[in-house]
């Protein structure tokens, strides 16, 4: 059934349909309506779920780690400061190989306080061992959540599903909502190999000496390396069942274009229109939407950029001292390749600043008109 719902409501639907067992969350703008929606649903009895209304985000993740060890499907949502507060526990969740799914609504981290869209929060957690999936619209949000549980439970790694603050979280769009039966076909019940069983007591997360710790970390990297294949399988199956698929990236625009614009999140929607317009005007441009940030889709991107001479990438985030994080990861993924197009790293839209079609076009034009970027970081729309 199709409904006009906000991004946060789409999250709530995703959670119900996934038959989540334990939710533990702490409110923070702009995630609050997720928590509120879920509270209503749990209280109404429509979900056979336990909702722990913990007193902080750190505790939210800790509680889920406890619950997930107990062999049940877990979910939380947060944003910005809450995500940062959880940081220690994000490491713990991946280290413990727990398939927790978390929605992070991208919001700037202060000071100064700012509640609007910014990717710095999720990206600053890129080293914690979580799979990260970015969404462009509310349909994708719901679908990604359903896929996320499959991917997490197969890879045994936690998954972060990311959407933009307000632009998606509080904006209504038409979303096709699958039925519970359809989802049950797609998402089997959760099974954990090592779980709590008082008949066979085991100790979890035991202190490990240098003699063995290295190998446990090696296993995590190996698991991450399996993710592209796992994600593709899941996405393909999803596509065949529901008619919708997303891939790790999506290329659109002119075939064999010289200049490629890479974006993630809702900026992509605006970019599609700009590029379409430019292609019609005869420009050799195309766009790449990056859905999966972690593990970074190096192979998929390399395939998609064949023939391009210049890559423009818009980061709605900043790692101070280095620049845009997508740009950094892109450059690193290209380093060992034979063909290495120029990378133009643009930063825009921090703290919810609108990334307008004009700004996008400005970025593309700059890229078209310069053989190489004149600055390490190209600031789009900065006030003088």
């Amino acid at each position, binding site marked *: 059934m199709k409904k006009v719902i906000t991004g946060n409501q789409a999250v709530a639907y995703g959670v119900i349909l996934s038959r989540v*067992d*334990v939710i*533990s969350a702490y409110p923070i703008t702009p995630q609050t309506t997720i928590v509120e929606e879920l509270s209503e649903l749990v209280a109404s009895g429509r979900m*056979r779920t*336990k909702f*722990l*209304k*913990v*007193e*902080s985000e*750190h*505790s*939210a993740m*800790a*509680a*889920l*780690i*406890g*619950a*997930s*060890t*107990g*062999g*049940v499907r*877990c979910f939380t949502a947060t944003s910005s400061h809450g995500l940062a507060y959880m940081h*220690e*526990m994000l490491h*713990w969740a991946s280290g413990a190989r727990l398939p927790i799914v978390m929605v992070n609504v991208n919001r700037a981290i202060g000071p100064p306080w700012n509640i609007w869209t910014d990717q710095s929060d999720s990206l600053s957690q890129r080293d914690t061992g979580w799979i990260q999936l970015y969404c462009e619209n509310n349909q994708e949000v719901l679908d990604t959540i359903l896929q996320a549980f499959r991917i997490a439970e197969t890879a045994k790694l936690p998954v972060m599903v990311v959407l933009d603050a307000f632009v998606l979280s509080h904006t209504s769009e038409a979303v096709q909502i699958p039925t519970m039966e359809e989802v049950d076909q797609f998402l089997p019940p959760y099974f954990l190999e090592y779980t*709590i*069983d*008082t008949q066979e*007591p*085991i*100790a*979890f*997360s*035991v*202190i*490990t*000496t240098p003699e*063995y710790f290295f190998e446990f970390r090696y296993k995590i990297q190996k698991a991450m390396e399996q993710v592209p294949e796992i994600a593709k399988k899941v996405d393909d199956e999803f596509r065949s069942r529901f008619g919708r698929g997303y891939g790790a990236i999506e290329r659109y625009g002119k075939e064999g274009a010289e200049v490629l614009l890479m974006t993630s999140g809702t900026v992509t929607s605006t970019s599609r229109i700009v590029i379409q317009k430019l292609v019609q005007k005869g420009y050799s441009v195309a766009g790449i939407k990056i859905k999966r940030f972690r593990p970074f889709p190096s192979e998929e991107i390399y395939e998609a950029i064949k023939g391009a001479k210049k890559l423009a990438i818009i980061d709605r985030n900043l790692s101070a001292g280095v620049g845009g994080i997508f740009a950094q990861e892109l450059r690193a993924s290209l380093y060992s390749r034979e063909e290495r197009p120029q990378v133009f790293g643009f930063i825009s839209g921090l703290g919810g600043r609108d990334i307008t079609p004009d700004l996008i076009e400005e970025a593309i034009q700059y890229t078209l008109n310069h053989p190489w970027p004149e600055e390490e970081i190209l600031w789009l729309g900065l006030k003088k």
Partner: protein
Amino acid sequence: MKKTEIPLSENLGHGHLACAGCGAAIAMRLTLKALGEKTVMVFPASCWSIIPGFWPYSSLRITAIHAGFVTGGATASGVRAALDIRGDQDALVAVWAGDGGTFDIGLQSLSGAAERNEDFLYICNDNEGYMNTGTQRSSATPLFAWTTTTPVTQPKENPKKDIIAIMADHQIPYAATATIAYPEDFLRKIEKAKKIRGTRFIHLLSPCPPGWRIPSELSVKISRLAVRSRVFPLYEIENGRFYTLQEESQVVPVKEYLKLQGRFSHLTEQDIGETQRRVDDAWERLLRRARC
């Protein structure tokens, strides 16, 4: 002394890494005998992250979940939720946290869980300092005590935080103090707590030979003196209101307790007098709270 009826199963096991004479090892051994095998115990960071042994070994014969330092209350809440979802009503969820993980860094998560009356048995193993990291002060360290961060030239300036009062004021169904020198009392309280649903909190005083600068053979004796000198009275609080105070028949001056411990060896007569005054004062306050 009456012979205590204690179960024979050794769920702590031997070969573990606790120091010789560790008060907490005595307590843990007794606790696990009383709790039995259908226990899932959460271990936020403390000495007990190390004591059971390194991977792939664990001397514990119960399910143990090692967790982040901050997270005793929260992790246990999650475990309980999972077990409830799975329909397992037999397994008991317990937390074994140190004074750091209870009084200080773990206080928030414990308070949150207690406010929600989460169903677990929380045991705070209080050795009055951050002993696992080498004896630094915590808010459970008593006034005037030496620690590595409160050296003899500037010993601890503030009195011990009254954690039981804080927990009782969360209106949890059961809170109690206990210590190793009174094993029957300790076991009775565990048995009682086992049968209650909701947040149950036991504040356990565990002497630490290296941290308190005492010889290993005196752990039990010193915990007895703590009770007899009224530094650590034994009592229970039910539903935040009903106090059961265990009167000690042989009360001794605080000096008897302090003089055996190296961490108090720098105390002057004035300090001892001050300590006695505060102990008497705290006892009076406890009596008043117990009556209303």
